[in-house]
Every structure is written in C-alpha cells, then in structure tokens.
C-alpha cells in the first residue's frame, strides 16, 4: 500500500518537476515569512526579523535539498539532472572531451574486439536446439586401444601420453551398440570428417569439405532443412541411393542459393550423389572452427575411397559420437550405464581393444566443452591477448584520470560555489562520477564501432593465415554488449573516482577567495599535494607500457629469429601445388604417368626454372615418420625416421644440396631397384658417421622393400622452422597424392593462373586442392607468433603513445601551474638551462620509476609467453633493455616539449600576470 503510494508520488515528482519545485519554494518562503511575522509582532524591526528568520533556517536551498533528497524517485531525478549538467560541462570543452572519448574508445574498443573473438571461439554455444543436452563420448585408458587404425578429425582433444591416453574416435559398431540404449539417450549420432572431396558436376572440379554423418545426425542435433530434407536413417542403409545435403553457406557461395540445386547430381570423388536438401542457415558448425560444405551418409565412406572409413571393422577407430540425453536422465547415471555398454562392446568381442588392467572407461562430456576444435589452438593466445588489452585499458584509464585531475583544478571555483550553495560532498562526488561514466559510455559507443572493424579484420587475418580456414562470427551479440557496458562502467568509476574524491574535498572558502588571483599563496599548499597522485598515475602508465613493449619485443625477436633460421634449402620463389588424382579415379598405374606429364608441362611455363613433386610439402605442418631397421646398425632395434617420397629433380628444385652420391632419378621412380637418399642427421645419429652409401634399410617387416642408400643430402627443416634437424630419408614416390614444387625466377604467386590452366588442360577432373608459395606456408606455421606479434606490437605502440601523452600532459600542467615560480626564479638569476633541467629531471624521475616498476612486473609475466618464443628467453636482457630504452627515448621527447616551453617563459610576462 505504502509502496504503491510512493510509486505514484515518484511519478508525480518526475513528471511535474517544475510545479513540485515552485510549490516547495513557496512553502518554505511562506514559513520564513511566518517566522518573521511572529518576530515583528514580538517587537523586532522587519529587516532584523527577516534576517534572523533566514539565518535560523540556515538557507532556503539546503532545506529544499533536504526535502528533495527524501522524495520518491529522487535517485532517478538527480541522475537525470546530473547527466544534463555533465553534458553541458563536457560540451563546453570539446577538445578535452574528444581526447578523453577517443582514448577510452581505443581502450574499450580493443577489449571489445578481443572479447568478440573470445566469445566466438570460447563462449558461443553450438548453434543447434538445446545444445546443453548434447554429450560427446570420450574414452580414456592406460594405453591406446588395439586397433587397425585410429583417425581423429580435430573434434576433441586427444591425449597421447604413455599411461594416460584418451580420445573420442570409436569404431562404428561400438556406436551402433551404444545407440541401442534408448533408455539413456534420446538420440545418438556418429560422424567423421571433414574430408576433402573432389566435387565435379558444378562447373570446374573443386574441393569440398565433406562431413560423413550417420542418418541420425540432423535428428539428434535438431537441425532442419532450409530446402528439401535433411538426411535420415534410410539414407544410411546398405544399398540406399547416394544422397547429399549442402551446407547453407556453401549453397549460397557455390550454387548462388538457387532452389534448382535440389535434385541435381554432383560427382564426389567420381561417385554420383543427388542433392536432396540444404541445412538450415543457423547451423554453421558443430565443433568450433570446423565447417563442412556437404554432408553425406557415413555408409558412403568406402564408396568415396576413404580407407579409414571402414563401417564394419570393429577395430577401426574413426567416428566421433554425440548423443542427446533422454529427458529426465542425468549425465552421471547415463555415464555409468554407457560405460558398461562401452566396455562390453570393446572388450568382450573377438578381438578385445583393451585388457582389464588397462582401465578403459567411457565418459560423457558436455558437447559445449568436449567438442573443443580450434578452441585449443586459439585459447592460449586469446587469453594472452585479453590480458594485453586489459593492460591497454588500464593505461587509458590512468591517462584519463590524469587529465581529469588536472582539469579538476580549473574547476575548483565551480565546486566551491556549489558547496557554498549547500551541495553535500556525496552529491558533488555523484555528479563528478556521472561525468566520468558519461565519458566512458561515449567511449564505449565509439569503441564498439572500432571493435567491430577490428574484430572483422582479425577474423579475416585468422581465417586466411591459420592452419585451416575457419569462420569466426563477429556479429555483436548481447554478451558482447553487456561486456562492453560492464567495461565502460568499471572504467568510468575507475578513472573517475580519484578526481571525484579530490573534488569533493575542495574547501569552499579558500577556493572562493581564489577568484581574483589565480595562483594566490593561500592555495599553494593545497595544490602542491596534487602532483603526487598525477605523477603516480603517469608512473603506472609508464610501467604498464614497459610491460607491453617487453612482451611485443620478445615476440618480434622470436619472429626475426625464426625468419633467420636456415631451412637447409632455398625457401624463396617456390610455388606449392597440391593435387590428388586418386580422388578423380586414377589408379596406381596411371598416377605416375600423370605426374610425369604434369612435371613436363609445368616446367615449360614461363618463369618456371624447375619442377618436382613429393608426397607432402615441407614447412607446412605435415610430417611423416616411420620406423625402420638399418642394415649394419649395431643395435638390433628399429629407429624412427622422418620420411618423404619424392619425384625426379626434387633436390635440384628445392635447392637442397647433395653432399655425396647421386639424387633420385626417373629410373629410380619408375622401376629401378629401390633407392633412397638420407640426410646428414640420419648418418650422424644412426650410423655414427660411417659411410652409408650402399647400405640398406626398410620397415621392420620381411616382405617390405629394402631401400639402398645412394646419396647424402644436407640437413633441412621438415615440419616447421623451430624443429631440430632430424634424421630424414627420401624415397621414390610411386603412388598417392602429391605436392608439386615449382622453382620460379620471378614472384611465384604470378604463376598461379597458368598452373591452374595447365592442370585443367591435362585432365580437368583432377582438382588443384590448394596452391600457395613456400613463404606463405612458413608464415602459416608461424601464425600464432605473427598474430601475437602484430597485435601485441600494435597494443604496445598504443600504450606507449598514451603513456607519453600522459607524461606530456603531466609536465605541461606542471609548467602552467608554476609559470609564476619560473618567472621569479628567472628574475632572481636562474639560467634557462636550470629551468629546463628542473622539468626534465622531474619527467625523467617519473620515467625511471615507471621503467623500474615495469621491468619488475615484466620479469614476472613474460614467462606466460614462453610457449610462443623461439631462440629468445622470456627474460631476454636485450629485449628488456630495448623496451626501457625505447620508452626513455620517446618519453624524452614528451618531456622536452613542455620543458622547453618552461625555458622560454618570459619573467616579466609571467609576473605581470598577477
């Protein structure tokens, strides 16, 4: 009842402010009149009566304020009033406002941009119905299961530690056994991929990423079709027609979003598939970072030629299983029952995968966490970046706090007047905080715009330079807006609090008297305290930017080190071209002929000096190792060596020097006795420097071919630049896909169209899977370092700039405040160099203190970067020194400008100001 009355009253107060105010004023004046009338009646003079009445009241305004404070809705009314006042104040100094808003926009924008990526990569939920009910099935055991093959597709983290193995690939029959548990799961699906499919029948042959899914896939996820129908259980049956469902984005890109795509026949790896549907638009992915172009029934794995996709083999571990819990069933109870079913299926068959002592277990992980995808690869850099932008925001806040402090000095008179009129300290603080928050909200609004642009650019950089193209959704959602609002409010209070507290301590009398003489002696003692806090804020900025500079410096030095690593071969002017004729139906006997033909045709292209091919590209992340036994080796055990199958002229094309013997030629590849070239590390490590030419080695299997070593190649890097040189054997390439390497005399990227045309001319069913230069490949491997170096470098520069502006501002303010003092000093005979020294010293002390603190903090935190560093220690003294020196240099300039202004102060002018 009472609260209802207060709501009505609050509405009246808010809606009829003017009437309420005039009424209040009239009421209090009437009171004063009545008191005065009493006193006149008691014999006082009218003038005296009024004066004493007013004096007893203690002022009309404080009483009115006391009434206002008790009124309903007073909070809202004062906030509104404060906001309007703040806007008026800020409009009066547009320069100040612009600088502050821009500084905050950069700080808040950087945070929002990185948070957008964090949100997209780490936080966004799976875009399907009720993702919280989905679980991913995960096994763990002391050892890997006994299997005929184990394939992972990056859906979840595989752990490969002796004694502690886990993963989520399973045999298809195990999936079927678990899918029968309708008492636990509403639905269960298995899938594998994505796998590259050669897609023909829609223009030129191209590569599509195909996801092999069980018939229950769309049903389990609750994903409907935007067009046609999703895949169903019937599509998975033996003998069912080959059908496919397109991803919405792929349909838009490659089929122009035409409804006519429905019912069309496309050829995937040379098998005809009918398009029966397009998945709905919202369904962009299941696992973060993994998007498919086309979905085909998992039973087609064999038809598509995937040897790993053996549906009936209970020992082939290759499908990922996701289930939707039956409603009412809790995860732990489903897990216990599913574990039993899993052990039954894997350990009690004809060929058990584990023994009882292996402690094999099945766990049900929530799909949101369990399907980690690229979250694992990007998680760490993103967390580091989040910390970095947090530091940038701190610098920005310290900077703005410094500006506000300096400004609050010029507002002392205004504050003094407000105190004299009866404003309370709390009220003044609230008003000043409103100003700060208004500033930070304006900064946030601009920051969101900057963040959107920044996040888009970052996402584009990430998706074109990462190991694998992945989509990042940077559309601002509610979480991002809330985050930005939170950051804005926190920073508004953060940088506004100190100036507000200081403002609320203004002494009215002293400041009022200041009116005429701007630097009256009375205020000197009061304002002398001020630089303390101001300097501390700049010290903080210097320290934080030293931390940023050190981090960025370490990464830049890492990149420089990596780029100066000797790869062992000439990495410049090489174009890499991936082809896989087996996907277009070539069999082993014809592949070699195609490669010879391609090698010849590509060699005759203009600008191409030499062409060869190999089973994989080097410095592209791929690696093939094999265990072999070497003839004449003292120990009887087999050894692990890196392997590469190569075509003719490989060493010449890569400019990988041969130190002894001969390279592999056409006859070795066609039909000669198996020959091999090994590298120096191979000789050093396995043969203790003995002459290897003529020795034989091969897999530890009697029937396998034994290669004869015919030459020694110089050591070179294989998978990535930061690897040690490891033993490597080069053997002839006889079958499978290949990467062609073209040594060009000009920029290699220029040859791309001609290469594509040549491959098409030779056989337009053979798709070029991808093309990139060797340098691009290397850059992709260094993606994390490059991303971090760029961003940290940018943020460090931003921090440096802000800190120097802060330093400049502090000294400028100091010079302005002490103009008269400088005048007196100069008049009394101080030299100009003394004045210059006075201020330079002051600036340098701040820089030194900040640098010392910054280096101290940096020593503690740079080890967080350790996993990204190469050839540089986290405590690299040179980098630490460099960061401090860089700051000292730029800081000196920031100090020199105001200090030289102080030097030029004309004493006569300064003293005349009085």
């Amino acid at each position, binding site marked *: *009842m*009472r609260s209802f*009355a*207060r709501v009505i*009253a609050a509405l009246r107060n808010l809606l009829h402010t003017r009437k309420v105010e005039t*009424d*209040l004023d*009239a*009421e*209090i004046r*009437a*009171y004063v*009149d*009545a*008191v005065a*009338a*009493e006193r006149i009646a008691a014999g006082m003079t009218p003038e005296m009566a009024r004066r004493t009445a007013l004096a007893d*009241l*203690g002022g009309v305004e*404080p*009483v009115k304020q*006391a*009434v206002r*404070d*008790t*009124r*309903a809705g007073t909070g809202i009314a004062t906030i509104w009033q404060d906001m309007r006042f703040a806007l008026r104040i800020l409009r009066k100094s547009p320069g100040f406002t612009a600088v502050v808003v821009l500084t905050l926009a950069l700080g808040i924008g950087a945070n929002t941009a990185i948070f957008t990526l964090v949100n997209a990569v780490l936080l966004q939920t799976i875009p399907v119905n009720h993702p919280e009910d989905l679980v991913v099935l995960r096994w763990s055991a002391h050892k890997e299961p006994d299997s005929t093959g184990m394939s992972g597709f990056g859906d979840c983290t595989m752990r490969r530690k002796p004694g502690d193995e886990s993963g989520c690939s399973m045999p298809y029959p195990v999936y079927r056994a678990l899918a029968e548990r309708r008492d636990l799961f509403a639905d269960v699906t298995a899938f594998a991929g994505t796998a590259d499919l050669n897609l023909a029948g829609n223009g030129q042959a191209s590569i599509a990423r195909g996801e092999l899914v069980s018939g229950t896939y769309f049903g389990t996820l609750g994903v409907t079709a935007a067009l046609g129908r999703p895949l169903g259980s019937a599509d998975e049956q033996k003998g069912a027609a080959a059908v496919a469902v397109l991803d919405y984005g792929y349909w838009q890109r490659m089929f122009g979003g035409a409804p006519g795509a429905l019912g069309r026949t496309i050829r995937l790896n040379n098998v005809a598939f009918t398009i029966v549907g397009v998945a709905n638009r919202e369904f962009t992915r299941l696992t973060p970072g993994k998007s498919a172009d086309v979905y085909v029934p998992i039973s087609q794995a064999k038809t598509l030629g995937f040897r790993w996709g053996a549906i009936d083999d209970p020992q082939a571990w290759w499908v990922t299983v996701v289930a939707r819990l039956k409603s009412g069933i809790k995860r732990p109870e489903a897990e216990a029952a599913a574990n039993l079913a899993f052990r039954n299926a894997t350990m009690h068959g004809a060929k058990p995968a584990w023994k009882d002592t292996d402690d094999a277990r099945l766990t049900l992980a929530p799909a949101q966490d369990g399907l980690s995808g690229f979250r694992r690869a990007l998680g760490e850099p993103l967390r580091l970046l989040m910390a970095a932008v947090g530091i940038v925001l701190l610098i920005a806040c310290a900077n703005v706090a410094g500006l506000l402090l300096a400004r609050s000095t010029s507002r002392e008179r205004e504050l003094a007047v407000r105190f004299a009129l009866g404003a309370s300290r709390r009220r003044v603080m609230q008003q000043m905080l409103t100003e700060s928050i208004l500033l930070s909200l304006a900064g946030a609004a601009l920051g969101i715009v900057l963040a959107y642009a920044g996040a888009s650019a970052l996402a584009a950089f990430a998706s074109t330079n990462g190991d694998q193209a992945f989509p990042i959704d940077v559309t601002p959602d509610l979480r991002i807006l809330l985050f930005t609002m939170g950051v804005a409010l926190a920073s508004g209070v953060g940088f506004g609090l100190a100036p507000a507290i200081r403002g609320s301590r203004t002494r009215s009398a002293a400041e009022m008297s200041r009116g005429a003489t701007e630097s009256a002696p009375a205020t000197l003692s009061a304002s002398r305290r001020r630089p303390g806090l101001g300097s501390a804020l700049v010290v903080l900025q210097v320290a934080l930017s030293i931390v940023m500079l050190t981090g960025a410096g370490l990464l830049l030095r890492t990149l420089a080190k990596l780029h100066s690593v000797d790869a062992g071969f000439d990495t410049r002017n090489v174009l890499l071209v991936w082809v896989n004729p087996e996907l277009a139906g070539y069999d082993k006997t014809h592949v070699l002929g195609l490669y010879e033909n391609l090698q010849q045709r590509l060699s005759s292209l203009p600008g191409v000096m030499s062409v060869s091919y190999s089973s994989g590209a080097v410095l592209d992340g791929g690696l093939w190792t094999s265990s072999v036994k070497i003839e004449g080796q003292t120990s009887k055990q087999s050894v692990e060596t890196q392997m590469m199958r190569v075509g003719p002229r490989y060493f010449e094309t890569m400019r990988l020097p041969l130190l002894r013997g001969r390279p592999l030629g056409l006859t070795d590849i066609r039909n000669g006795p198996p020959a091999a070239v090994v590298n120096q590390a191979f000789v050093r490590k396995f043969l203790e420097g003995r002459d290897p030419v003529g020795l034989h080695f091969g897999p530890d299997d009697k029937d396998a071919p034994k290669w004869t070593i015919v030459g020694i190649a110089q050591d070179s890097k294989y998978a990535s630049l930061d690897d040690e040189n490891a033993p490597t054997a080069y053997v002839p390439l006889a079958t499978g896909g290949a990467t062609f390497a073209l040594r060009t005399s000009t920029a290699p990227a220029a040859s791309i169209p001609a290469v594509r045309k040549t491959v098409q001319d030779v056989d337009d069913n053979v798709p070029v899977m991808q093309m990139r230069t060797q340098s691009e490949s290397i850059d992709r491997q260094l993606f994390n370092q490059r991303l971090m170096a760029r961003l940290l470098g940018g943020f460090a520069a931003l921090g440096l700039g802000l800190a120097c502006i802060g330093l400049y501002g502090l000294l400028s303010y100091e010079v302005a405040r002490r103009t008269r003092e400088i005048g007196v000093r100069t008049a009394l005979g101080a030299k100009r160099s003394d004045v210059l020294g006075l201020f330079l010293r002051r600036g340098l002390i701040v820089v030194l203190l900040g640098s010392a603190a910054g280096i101290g903090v940096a020593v503690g935190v740079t080890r967080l970067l350790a996993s990204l560093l190469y050839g540089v220690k986290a405590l690299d003294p040179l980098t630490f020194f460099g960061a401090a020196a860089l700051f000292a240099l730029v800081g000196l300039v920031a100090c020199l400008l105001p200090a030289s202004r102080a030097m030029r102060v004309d004493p006569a002018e300064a003293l005349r100001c009085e």
Partner: protein
Amino acid sequence: MTQSQTNLLQGTLDLLILKAVGDVEMHGLGISRRIEHITEGTFQVKPGSLFPALHRMEEAGWLTSFWGESENNRRAKYYRRTKAGERQVHVETKQWNTIAGAMASALKA
C-alpha cells in the same frame, strides 16, 4: 537551543507530527510550534528536519496538503491527517509504548 533538544529520537518525529496535526489543518510553522508546545519545549523541530518529514509523510499517504490563507492573510501550505495517518498513529503509539515500557523496566532492573 541545545544539541539534545534537536536530536529527535529516530522514528519519533513522524509520531509527533501526526499527533500535533491531530484533526485540524496546520501549516509548517504551526506544526513546529505545536510540537514545541505539546512536548513542553523539549523538542524544537528545525525546518531542515520538518519539511523533509512532511513531504515524506505526504508521499506515504499519511498527510494530505492544500494551499490556503494563513492568519496574516498570506498563502501557506496546510497539512491534514488522512485515515491512513490515523491508523499510523495507533501503530506507532503502540510501538512507542512497547519501547518505552521495555526501557523503563530495563532501567529499573
């Protein structure tokens, strides 16, 4: 005026005002004088406490106000107790008697 006179016990001001207004119509100064009178000069309510309390109680619905003519023919804002105000007198009187009784026996003990 000593400090003790102005420091009204927390919560007693509302009751005093409601009591002072009684069933008649009064303006601010009248209420102040009436309180002084009925408490035999123990409580002198200053405008800085009186007006906020009047406005708060009006918003709570215990008092209503209207503009009228004062004794010396000036416009003044008059307050009158509402039905809710009367009920509040009973509630607060009861509360006060409980506290006063409790304090009295506590001091006697």
